[in-house]
């Protein structure tokens, strides 16, 4: 009887920890997400306290551009993979927290940024069509800012980054269902 209770207790505990946040719940409810964001923020704070922002050189050292003549374009095996890389990350409703998946995508985009030639990186923040105009402008700004923060923490020069919120004005996908909405809650990386 006691073992049964213990089993039930452990099982329930397992269920509880396995459940993700219900849709629409405040972002703070996922422990992993909160820790990740805090870690990234802490890292950035440390760097700014030291007064130095790392500037990764934008050519040559990573080996994607080499004396073999392959540039940023076709022909290199790595580029097949890069072609599929989305230059955007997605968010939950009413949230500007980066998921683990988003962070992974951004890390891959760092490599893309290193290879590309650009003078300015524009990070756009977008929302789905629900909610009010002004709140969504602010939320879009938060989404752009959080991506900038991450990239800067990984060494991208903050003076070359501009953020701009489009609120809910520029959906990527038209439609009035969760599929469309989930595609529109995003930050985009645009190079100039």
């Amino acid at each position, binding site marked *: 009887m006691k073992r049964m209770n213990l089993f039930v207790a452990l099982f329930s505990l397992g269920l509880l920890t396995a459940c993700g946040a219900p849709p629409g719940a405040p972002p703070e409810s996922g422990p992993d997400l909160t820790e990740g964001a805090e870690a990234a923020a802490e890292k950035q704070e440390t760097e700014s306290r030291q007064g130095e922002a790392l500037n990764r050189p934008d050519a040559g050292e990573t080996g994607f551009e080499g004396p073999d003549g392959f540039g940023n374009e076709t022909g290199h095996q790595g580029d097949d993979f890069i072609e599929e890389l989305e230059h955007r990350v997605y968010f939950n409703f009413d949230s500007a927290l980066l998921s683990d998946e988003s962070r992974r995508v951004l890390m891959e985009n760092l490599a893309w940024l290193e290879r590309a030639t650009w003078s300015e990186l524009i990070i756009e923040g977008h929302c789905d069509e629900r909610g009010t105009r*002004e*709140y969504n402008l*602010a939320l879009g700004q938060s989404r752009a*800012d959080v991506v900038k923060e991450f990239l800067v923490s990984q060494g991208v020069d903050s003076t070359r980054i501009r953020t*701009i919120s489009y609120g809910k*004005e520029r959906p990527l996908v038209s439609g*009035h269902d969760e599929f469309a909405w989930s595609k529109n809650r995003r930050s985009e990386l645009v190079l100039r």
Partner: protein
Amino acid sequence: MVSHRVNIWSMTLLTLWSLLSLFSMLAAERASAALNIDISKGGLDPLPIAVPVFVDLNTNKVSHDAAAPGRRIADVVMADLERSGLFRPLKRKSFLQDALSLWRVSPQYRNWRLVGAEAIVSGAVRSVGDKIRVGFLLYDVFQGSLIGGSGKWFTTSEKNWRYIAHRIADEIYSRLTGESGYFASRIAFIAQDEEGRKRVSVMDHDGANRVTLTSHAKLALTPRFSPNGESLFYLSYETGHPRIFRWDLYTGKKRQQGDYRGLNSAPSWSPDGSRMAMTLSKDGNSEIYVKDLKTEALKRLTYNRVIDTSPSWSPDGRRIVFNSNRGGTPQLYIMDADGDNPHRITFEGRYNAAPSWSPRGDWIAFVKGGGGQFRIAVIGPDGRNERVLTDAWMDESPSWSPNGRVILFSRQKGNRSYLYSIDLTGHNEKRIRVDQKENASDPSWSPLIR
């Protein structure tokens, strides 16, 4: 035998006399009660009112020609009254008294009672050069007298004839409800054309005299009227970033209002016109600031790591209601105009946003999300008496009429967007027509034009 006959006769007389006095008592009660519409009650029967064509004093005739000033002005008055939902204008062809004798002599009250009118508007127009002089009188049919003591004359240049008609409609509304009207006002909104361009547009409250701010800009949002109705703040991306601009309607001048780093948004005029509240993200995240429009001094009002936006001033300029998710979800808060004493006022639901403080100070309109819908609601500034007014999927951008009794808002249906209005009582929801092919959103109601 004699007594028997007398008894029947006196019984009959008594009955007749009782009936007569009862009838006249009732009639007297009705006649002695002044006509009054209580607009705080919703769902009233609209008041039947007669608005004959106005007399042309230059010819001493009444012309029903659609272009005649007497006809045009009376039609605009009639349309305003009907649109309010409080009046039912009667058909002119049923009238038993002609407009000329009504104006020159007086109402034949019995004839107006016969067509079911409870109030009559009598009016006249005289052209003097390029100016017109318009007068009106308002009568109570059952009382058989003038309402409001006397009539009124208005003089303006002929091209402003609509404005005079709206002023007259406001007078009529005011005399019958005890409240000030809202017909002499303008609506600013965002018009999206078929190419998807969003631009600021301004029109009379009934849709006439429409002007669109054209520029190379493709995306403009959230226009807001100044307290004197002569300027608009709005958001535009024409410089490549969201920035606040000002459009002075009578001069046509357009000026950028600041160039702060990051998001510049949500402009809102203080009621005395001296300051602008807005949302800036320049200090790390969206916060509310107040800028003195003369000195350009900027004061930060909110300090936290979350979104604070959509500031709206109380009519006395002492407090600001705004939208913040400092509690975890977007909710409404009120703070003093210097940022002190912020306190939350909405506690039901997970999404309460876009607040707009009524010019009367008694209600705050806002957008309430829940159950997959976003609806227009009102709440007292003390956080009590919350009431949801609409029932659709995506309603937003509430804006108050100058008399604080009607709310304009924007409704999205599929890919289309429309302007609607609804009374504070929750009744009389109606769509406001603009161009068929356009999407209309982000309405802002001007103060009364004086």
